[in-house]
């Protein structure tokens, strides 16, 4: 099932009172996107960026102010949630506390009417199948309160899958789990999605989560789509400063720099030769893995301390042109044996250096020799 969002816009009326102006809040602003069939798509963005609203619009719990939603060729915009055939997993799972796991999973099936109505045996078979898929077949007679967070989430997924939805929607599926379980569960979600091949959209504010399991990610900010692409592409080729900042751990290092006579200057040092970039002040983003330790490197920083992480070493340093309090660079453990003194010199990998317009934050592409 392909999902097409066409000029999707959702505004909420402003809450201003008295003389204050009531300005509408634009939660989702002109969202255009085609989600290919059978893919896992992550909506990513900071809180309040409209990603959950987008999910609710696809689900049908909220109606768009403008624009349309298509499932394949069918316009589902005017349809209620139940007629869209979507399965939804809520952030806090919304398992009915008074029903046990089996009853919870069976609940959507009992709603079916008319020709879709299932016999008791069919329902049981479907419930068993869904429970088996998420590996909770041994918990069927428990109450939700007797389950761990991860198990509750599996139940919620089973409940969403049991009615064989055309689209599966997950709202912050991992935010209520602890770190270890989160890793495990995101693999689980990936596995279930691959197995069922249901087009799946999930919302998250955690870029690790989105990057690790999505086929495509959509980065949003203030209701506007910033960039859509495969996780690696978006990471390697951020469209603007926001996307570059939002993706990556440790985060990207930002500098104030300028382009002058075909060279990129950070402070007084020319660190890269550039082609075809007019002279201008720029914001410079350098990924932590974009630094190479070199004794004759062109970029000199004041060394604070190396942080040993085992496989890699994270070198913490400072530089007057840096916009962050410290610069973090990740280098191989072997290459930094000779680290001493209070300065450290780097060469930069050009493909890990991004230039952004200082006013608009848009990416300025460049080529090196």
């Amino acid at each position, binding site marked *: 099932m392909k999902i097409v969002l066409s000029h999707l816009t959702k505004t909420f009326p402003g809450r201003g009172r008295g003389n204050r102006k009531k300005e509408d809040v634009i939660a989702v602003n002109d969202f255009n996107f085609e989600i290919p069939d059978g893919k896992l798509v992550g909506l990513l963005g900071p809180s309040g960026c409209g990603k959950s609203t987008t999910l609710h619009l696809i689900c*049908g719990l909220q109606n768009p102010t403008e624009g349309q939603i298509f499932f394949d060729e069918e316009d589902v915009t005017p349809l*209620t949630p139940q007629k869209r055939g979507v399965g939804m997993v809520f952030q806090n799972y919304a398992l*009915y*506390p*008074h029903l046990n796991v089996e009853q919870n999973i069976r609940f959507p099936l009992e*709603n079916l009417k008319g020709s879709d109505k299932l016999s008791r045996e069919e329902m049981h078979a479907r419930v068993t199948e869904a429970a088996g898929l998420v590996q909770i077949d041994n918990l069927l007679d428990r109450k939700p309160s007797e389950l761990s967070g991860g198990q509750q989430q599996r139940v919620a997924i089973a409940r969403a899958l049991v009615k064989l939805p055309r689209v599966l929607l997950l709202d912050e599926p991992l935010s209520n789990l602890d770190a270890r379980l989160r890793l495990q569960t995101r693999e689980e979600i990936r596995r279930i999605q691959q197995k069922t091949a249901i087009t799946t959209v999930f919302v998250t504010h955690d870029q690790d989560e989105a990057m690790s399991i999505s086929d495509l990610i959509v980065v949003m900010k203030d209701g506007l789509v910033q960039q859509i692409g495969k996780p690696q592409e978006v990471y390697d080729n951020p469209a603007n400063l926001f996307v570059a900042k939002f993706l990556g751990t440790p985060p990207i290092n930002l500098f104030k720099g300028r382009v002058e006579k075909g060279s990129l200057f950070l402070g007084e040092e020319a660190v890269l030769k550039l082609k075809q970039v007019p002279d201008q002040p720029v914001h410079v983003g350098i990924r932590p893995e974009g630094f190479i330790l070199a004794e004759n490197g062109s970029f000199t920083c004041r060394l604070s301390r190396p942080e040993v992480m085992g496989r890699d070493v994270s070198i913490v340093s400072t530089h007057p042109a840096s916009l962050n309090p410290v610069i973090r660079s990740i280098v191989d453990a072997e290459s930094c044996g000779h680290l001493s003194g209070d300065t450290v010199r780097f060469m930069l990998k050009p493909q890990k250096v991004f230039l952004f317009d200082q006013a608009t934050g848009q990416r300025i592409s460049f080529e090196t020799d």
Partner: protein
Amino acid sequence: MTRLRDSGFHLKLTDHNSYMQKLCKSDICRLFPDLYKRFGMESLMEKQNNKGWLYLLPAILFLGAFLIYPLIDVFIYSFEEGYNSASQTFYGIGGYNYSYVLHDAYFLQALKNTFILVIITVPLSTGLALLISVALSSIKPLQELFQTVFFLPYVTNTLAVGLVFMILFKKTPYSDGLVNLLIHCFGGSSVDFIEGPYWAKMFVLCFYTVWVVMPFKILILTSALAGVNPVYYNAARVDGTGRIRMFLKITLPMISPMLFYLVITGFIGAFKAYSDAVALFGTNLNAAGMNTIVGYVYDMLYRDSGGYPSYASAAAIILFSIVLTITCINLLVSKKHVHYH
């Protein structure tokens, strides 16, 4: 009811106390073995224990003097035959008081009235309150206004309202009340609801009781309904749940603890009905045939120069056992249908 709750409270408190003691004692022993021996922590613990009882003393004294002692006393009175409160004498001990009360036509009438009242008003008032609360919580504009309107009866005086009901339903040789005028409008013949046939009087009593107890139930149920997390409704909507099924399968179980609370207190309240009947039919309830068990107890104590505390006690104990039985049945039924989360 109060007593049951209080004993539960004590139990919990003492449990907690002893747990704390065990914990403290073992911890202190382990951490400071010398200290423990030297300063005689054992006696300190004893002191702590006594202190706990000291804190409880005011409550125990009050409850003992004004709740437990009278209860026991009533129980004893009910077995003392021919007790005279003036001379503080009685002839003997036995079950005669019970036998007299149970064979008294007035008591049987009161028993019947009370049961009819309970059986009709408790389900009716709870059901209506639920209906109104659901309607209230599903409207947005003027919700607060309606809430206030529905709650008003709760703050009005029972006797004053009874008077108004009497005027509404009354029929005299010269004039009809509003209700009778309405009946005329629809082509019926007027009925005297206050001094007329039994069913008419019972109707007014039930109507009045439902009207009086409903505001509180509406208040409780609207807040219970507001407390249900809307995410459950969203989940149900996505799953295509119909409105009725949503109400039966989600809303009802979610508010079932409150509903159960209302049913229990409703039963107890209705069994203890008295002032409502007085407000409508005056103090001579036996003559009106509208007496209730509590009314019977009161009559035995004070009416016709009173003087039958033993019969009154026996009736009170019978009422107590009825209420206790019903409450126990309620509790048993609730085990299956009430969901505490």
